[in-house]
């Protein structure tokens, strides 16, 4: 079986943020996962947007969450472009957080035999050069 790589060696640039997503990236400096929360509809939403996905109102809170959840779906990227070229094969996963949002990421510490839809996962924070971190996932064994 081909070993699936974890993409930690990929030379990623710091991620460009926007006025309404800066708080997310700032929190990632301390490996904290914060998600936008709409108090009117009592719903989380991700990725960060300038307004509520449901009502269009701009009053949104940030709430810290555990980042635990389960695999919603996954694929194995086998042919990609720079800066990922040469780091294949690697997982791209969509995770349903326990708070009810789907979040994309890569997987570390996980081989093909363990991967399945429904697998419980927890966060893994990969450092970026500007002090922020990129959210990845690992099996929650």
């Amino acid at each position, binding site marked *: 079986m081909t070993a699936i790589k974890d993409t930690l060696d990929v030379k990623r640039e710091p991620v460009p943020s926007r006025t309404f997503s800066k708080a997310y990236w700032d929190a990632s400096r301390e490996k904290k996962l914060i998600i936008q929360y709409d108090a009117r509809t009592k719903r989380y939403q991700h990725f960060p947007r300038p307004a509520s996905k449901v009502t269009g109102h701009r009053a949104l809170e940030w709430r810290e969450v555990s980042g635990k959840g389960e695999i919603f779906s996954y694929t194995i*990227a*086998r042919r990609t472009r720079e800066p990922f070229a040469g780091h294949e094969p690697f997982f791209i996963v969509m995770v349903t957080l326990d708070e009810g949002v789907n979040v994309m990421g*890569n997987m570390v510490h996980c081989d093909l035999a363990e991967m399945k839809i429904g697998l419980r996962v927890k966060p893994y924070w990969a450092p970026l050069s500007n002090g922020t971190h990129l959210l990845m996932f690992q099996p929650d064994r």
Partner: protein
Amino acid sequence: MAMHDVAVVGYAETKIVEKTDRDIWEMQAEILESLLEKTGFEKGEIDGMILSSSMTGAGNAFWSQTTADQLALELDFCQTVDIGGCSPTGALARACMAIDAGFCTTVLCLYADTQASEANRQRPRSYFGEWQQPHGYLGPPAAFGLLSKRYEHQFGLDYRALAKLAVAQRGHSVLNDLACEKLRKPITEDDYLNSRMIADPIRLLDSVMVCDGASGLIVTSKKNAEKRGLNKCVVPIGYGERTNYRARDNIVDVTETGHLPAGARAFAQAGLKASDIASFHPYDDFIIAIMMQLEMLGFCKHGHGCDFVKSNDFTHTGSLPLNTGGGQISAGQAGLAGGGTNLIEAVRQLFGEGGKRQVKNTKNALVTGIGGIPYGRNWASSVVMIMTPNA
């Protein structure tokens, strides 16, 4: 006036090539010249132009104006449609609108992209760089990998059924002189199954190859067509469009697509149902998208696509002729103009000019579009159009 008072009176298409050495404007000029010759319109009579989006034109915020100037067209209506692979069929719908509203009378719908040889997408403003690119989610194969795994989890996925669709389309591109030469070789179901994985479970033969090419239509009012003796024409009778299906939801069933509402609208407007459709020309960036659209448009139940595929014949002489020019997967994807390949083939069939691959039943044809790769959903835009020959 209404949409069905508008007629497509001419179509044109270049050969699809792996990499062109010709300028995109030269290809567009070839389409315009061909359309003028076929329809008898004078160039000066064209008073509207609608372009599909184009990776070559990307970065030029004045794409439709600049292109119109290159072709020296003086226009009362000029725009680019930017809903990705939905743009060509979306452009035809907007041509109907513009003519119906009285803004112009004769529209050139022009679809061209030379993405393989000249992509000019510099720094697109998108959420891609922040939320997708950092994970190596670099394009459509990863999106369709995630989607396919989820489909398999929910319903099971018979890869032989997908193989059957790939083989049927390939058989059609062999009969299509304008298809990309590299792809005009027959394949077997085993060839499909054994082709290498790109983004599991997406295989090479699931996927489109980016190419260069152009196509186009002349659209005018039915009254004008009749006045000029252009009796051979095609009339759109139903259209539906949906962008960001389930945009507000956080967890979306990715096996359900915007073709569900778009199809319901198109069928209601046309007064038809799936079983009435004579030939099917769905947007095909990946094979599984064809099967999902069969489900969403009501040819079969949600999750029953594989069974439907296995019990039908999709060749041009079969029970439901499918993308009879080969589709984009087997004719080549002319960048963002690729949706024109499915659309032009449907029009050609209804004109009765399918040649070696002419379908018998030309009562109608259904064309679709798919556009854009969003975050956590399947695709951004879905369109459905039903057309008939001039009754």
